[in-house]
């Protein structure tokens, strides 16, 4: 097997990894072995051989297609592949007129930085691994989402995808077998002891299982939240991907349920679908009215089984404060825990002066910032633990006097 072919497969695999596919070093070996066995003669065959090895999830298929097209585009396939070839990608994406497909952005992101220079593979390797260095990450962690450049937002999104997600668990009513503790499990006890002949009765135990409580996110997408909403949605997408029951609602002047859209595995596709579903993006906001709709039409459907509610809004409501209070009260009473995440908290001197904020604060369990990756990570940690004093909403009211 030609060394260059193996190299190229390695680079191709690395590009796929950068674009978000999960590939281990084993799959590169598999791919080389597969090419060896199959000895494809046409581009189609070559494509499908690599596809077989690399694509493990249907959602990745589109990503793979894009990456393949870009990576192997310029070459008349087999001859040049075996001949000289540096792992460089074309300088522009496939077809500028075509609407970018799902994942296209990330594929381009993963491949294009390499296209800027025609450096030898050794240096390129360095560049790839240096794309997210430790210091890079540290700066990104504390940077306000609103001040990020487009490139930084892309990186932040990658970091969100890799974020450790909340591992909060509540006791369920269902029993599971355990080795220690709990109560005697008669069914297993009898079955086990009979297997051994019934001479000794060996006690087996069972205890309550643990499960994630459902999460319901109510996300304000009005103009004042425009810089923060997309990243928060990205975070919710990652959460929806990992946990079974996450329901997401967007509201500005009206309430939209985007749970189904967020279930799409590809984040770009999911967010694009959300955008298409919503009519009041970056418009005004009517928090009270939106909460009223939620309470009436959805709360009974999604707040069962001890749901945690994430309310993402700046709380700047001018309309009807009485109804806002009533609706917040109802929401608070019908959720296990109501966490208000507010990007305004980023300011050191934040004071709960605005009327809307003063109305809502006494009715939430937790009040947190959400303006940077670090704040997001804090939120994750907070969801995993019991509420702390620092984020007790009452302290903010006291501060404001």
């Amino acid at each position, binding site marked *: 097997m030609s060394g260059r072919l193996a190299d190229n497969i390695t680079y191709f695999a690395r590009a796929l990894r950068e674009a978000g596919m999960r590939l281990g070093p084993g799959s590169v070996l598999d791919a080389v072995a597969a090419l060896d066995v199959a000895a494809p003669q046409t581009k189609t065959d070559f494509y499908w051989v690599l596809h077989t090895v690399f694509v493990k999830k249907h959602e990745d298929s589109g990503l793979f297609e894009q990456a393949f097209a870009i990576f192997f585009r310029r070459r008349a396939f087999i001859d040049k592949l075996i001949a000289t070839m540096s792992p460089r990608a074309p300088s522009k994406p496939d077809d500028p007129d075509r609407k970018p497909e799902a994942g296209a952005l990330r594929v381009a992101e993963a491949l294009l930085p390499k296209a800027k220079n025609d450096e030898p593979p050794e240096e390129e390797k360095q560049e790839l691994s240096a794309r997210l260095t430790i210091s890079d990450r540290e700066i990104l962690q504390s940077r306000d989402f609103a001040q990020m450049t487009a490139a930084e937002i892309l990186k932040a999104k990658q970091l969100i995808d890799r974020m450790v997600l909340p591992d909060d668990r509540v006791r369920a*009513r269902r*029993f599971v077998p355990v080795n220690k503790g709990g109560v005697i499990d*008669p*069914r297993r006890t*009898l079955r086990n002891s*009979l297997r051994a002949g*019934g001479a000794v009765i060996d006690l087996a135990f069972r205890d309550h299982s643990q*499960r994630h409580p459902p999460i319901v996110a109510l996300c304000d997408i009005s103009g004042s939240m425009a810089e923060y909403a997309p990243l928060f949605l990205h975070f919710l997408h990652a959460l929806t991907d990992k946990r079974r029951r996450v329901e997401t609602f967007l509201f500005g002047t009206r309430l939209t349920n985007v749970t189904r859209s967020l279930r799409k595995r590809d984040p770009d596709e999911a967010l694009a679908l959300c955008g298409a579903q919503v009519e009041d993006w970056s418009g005004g906001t009517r928090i009270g009215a939106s909460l009223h709709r939620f309470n*009436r039409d959805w709360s*009974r459907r999604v707040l069962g089984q001890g749901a945690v509610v994430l309310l993402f809004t700046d709380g700047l409501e001018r309309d009807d404060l009485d109804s806002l209070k009533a609706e917040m009260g109802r929401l608070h009473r019908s959720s296990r825990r109501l966490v208000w995440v507010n990007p305004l908290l980023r300011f050191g001197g934040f004071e709960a002066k605005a009327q809307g904020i003063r109305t809502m604060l006494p009715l939430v369990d937790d009040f947190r910032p959400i303006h940077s990756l670090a704040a997001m990570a804090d939120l994750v940690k907070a969801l995993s633990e019991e509420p702390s004093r620092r984020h007790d909403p009452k302290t903010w009211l006291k501060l404001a006097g």
Partner: protein
Amino acid sequence: MIRAVPASIDDTQTQLSQTGYVADRALATVVYLALKMGRPLLLEGEAGVGKTEIAKSLATMLGRKLIRMQCYEGLDVASAVYEWNYAGQMMAIRLAEVEGSTDRARLESDLFSSRFLIKRPLLQALEPDTQGPPVLLIDELDRTDEAFEAFLLEILSDYQVSVPEFGTVKAEHPPIVIVTSNRTREIHDALKRRCLYHWVDYPDAERELAILKAKAPQAPEALTRQIVGFVQALRKQDLFKVPGVAEALDWASALVELDAVALDPKLVSDTLGVLLKYQDDIQKMQGSDIAKMLSEIGKG
């Protein structure tokens, strides 16, 4: 002698009304299809619109046994399908010891025989019955968790369960399955796919009148009309929970108990708690002009 299923949609509607259930055309259609096609019927709707009642009426109508399984969080195989009588088994082991019996194989087959098997609703529903396959009501499925739903999926597709020590029980004739849900969470698509679906809505005035006449015949005709009119008007208000048919029936019997012959604003205001179960709603209605609502009903 097994009573036959209805021959047409009209027949279904008539037979159901004979048991006291006033079904609209859409519901009669879906019930007829469920019976004909042998598919489970998934009924969703607000609380108190008569979802559970359909199963009961069907059982009466077809003269079948009704097996009801109330779902709750943590419902498991032991309480849904079968359980062994452990105390009895322990006793049998102890007796065998005292008798000095050494035949282990026999003891084992004795212990796991139907004598010690406690049958729960799902297993009962799969057993043959002299009156024909029973009506299995799986009530409020949304209260249980996804794990149980997945298990149910298996039963609803094959109509069989296996008890490891005992063998597989398969229904010769599948039961008539009615699943209800209050939508406190979404039922998984995979389960929905296997069922015929029907959203049970609040009845219109005409049907509600028929229901009240059938279920609360003791109320005078004029009062019944007023009750229906007021409840229908109430459903148009912006309330957190509007009254269902069950509440309307409760109200009718409450008013009969109070010897009322006609509605007046004070009577309505005093008995609102029968219709509305949320303080905000009651407050809102008491603040509004009940007299005006009543006079509008009188006109209509």
